[in-house]
């Protein structure tokens, strides 16, 4: 097949694959992050440019992100490097901005490229949707009217995602919609494995759009309650971005305005720059900025789920076992 860089010597191929695997793991754990990122980028670049048939948009995206993460000093925190030599509080802004822009570029150009008659007619989706995929597409729905509507929806979704993550008002909707969109792609199209990788790459970029400054939120919990203690331990474990300052109600000499002692015993309290939330609303709002939950937490904002959640929270709160010495405070 045609090569761009010229033929890779066959004896070099195992070395490239091996270097890719080792550098990938080392980069993942943030050990000698810049060196690992450089080796990983080089292995990807050789694969991408070594042969035309090895090109994939997913690999191109992975390469772009690896280069930018390497330049952005991705090992500055939550890494073995940070554990070894301390967390660095600041990283260069420009590669981080480029990473955030990558979401807009990928979705934006994907939407623009689909603005052609063949795609809008539904023919492209008909050729790719439900063939060899995890979920089959019902034959009864395989009509041009349906396919055309799905095609238009996919264009609108990608166009929306290209801009929504930049808007504080639309960002949360964008996260929820993006998750649903990528799940639909993975389930409905082939090859699922590559599409899973693509989705995870995109989600890693979503995370950069989270507006969650360190220590910007205050969580007040009933530290006389063991059940609440285990919940708070989970929160502390999963709050990788250190957004929340978690304090027991009894340790606070002065409560924030609008929060009483009775409130803190009745339900978990969350104070953010935007206002106050309690109980299920506090949990839901907390989940919106945790890396493990920010994508699906927006779906908890529906009216029915909020109502059910509030009732469930109240039921659990009333039955919780309290006044057991807590280790989380």
């Amino acid at each position: 097949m045609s090569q761009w860089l010229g033929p890779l010597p066959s004896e070099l191929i195992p070395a490239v694959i091996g270097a890719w695997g080792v550098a990938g793991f080392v980069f993942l754990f943030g050990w000698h992050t810049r060196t690992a990122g450089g080796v990983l980028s080089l292995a990807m670049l050789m694969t991408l440019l070594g042969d035309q048939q090895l090109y994939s948009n997913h690999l191109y995206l992975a390469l772009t992100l690896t280069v930018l993460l390497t330049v952005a000093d991705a090992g500055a925190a939550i890494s073995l490097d940070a554990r070894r030599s301390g967390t660095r509080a600041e990283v260069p802004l420009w590669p981080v901005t480029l990473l955030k822009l990558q979401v807009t570029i990928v979705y934006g150009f994907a939407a623009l490229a689909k603005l052609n008659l063949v795609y809008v007619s539904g023919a492209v989706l008909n050729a790719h949707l439900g063939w060899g995929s995890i979920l089959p597409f019902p034959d009864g729905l395989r009509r041009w009217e349906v396919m055309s509507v799905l095609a238009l929806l996919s264009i609108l979704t990608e166009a929306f995602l290209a801009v929504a993550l930049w808007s504080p008002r639309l960002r949360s909707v964008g996260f929820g919609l993006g998750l649903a969109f990528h799940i639909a792609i993975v389930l409905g199209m082939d090859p699922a494995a590559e599409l899973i990788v693509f989705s995870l790459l995109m989600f890693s970029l979503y995370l950069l759009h989270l507006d969650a400054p360190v220590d910007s939120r205050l969580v007040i919990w009933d530290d006389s309650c063991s059940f609440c203690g285990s919940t708070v331990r989970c929160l502390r474990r999963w709050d990788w971005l250190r957004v929340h300052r978690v304090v027991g109600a009894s340790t606070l000499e002065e409560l924030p305005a609008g929060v009483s002692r009775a409130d803190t015993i009745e339900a978990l309290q969350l104070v953010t720059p935007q206002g106050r939330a309690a109980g299920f609303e506090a949990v839901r709002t907390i989940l919106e900025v945790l890396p493990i939950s920010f994508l699906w937490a927006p779906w908890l904002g529906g009216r029915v789920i909020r109502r059910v959640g509030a009732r469930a929270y109240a039921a659990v709160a009333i039955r919780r076992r309290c006044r057991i010495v807590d280790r989380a405070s």
Partner: protein
Amino acid sequence: VVFLGVFALQIAIPAAKLRSGSQSRFGWQMFARLGSDPWFGVRYADGSVDTVQVGDYLARVRSDIDLPALLPPHLCRQFDEAVTVLVRWRGVEGRATDYPCP
């Protein structure tokens, strides 16, 4: 300067690819168009023809690769006794390329 340079490239490359009118690399054109999907066969000296399963010779069948130009020389090497590699486009009557093996 680096920021502007990289950003300009990130925009300029896919923007240029948009004008190509067909699937192309570095353009973020995932599932945006249909490929041409040519058929390949080999003809032997006695006139018999075998269909070639293209997927057996490619890591990935991409419509943006000029297979009719690039694949026949390789097929000639794979099929020792072939005298010609045949290329036909599905649904396009009369469009055909015959590549004589050396």
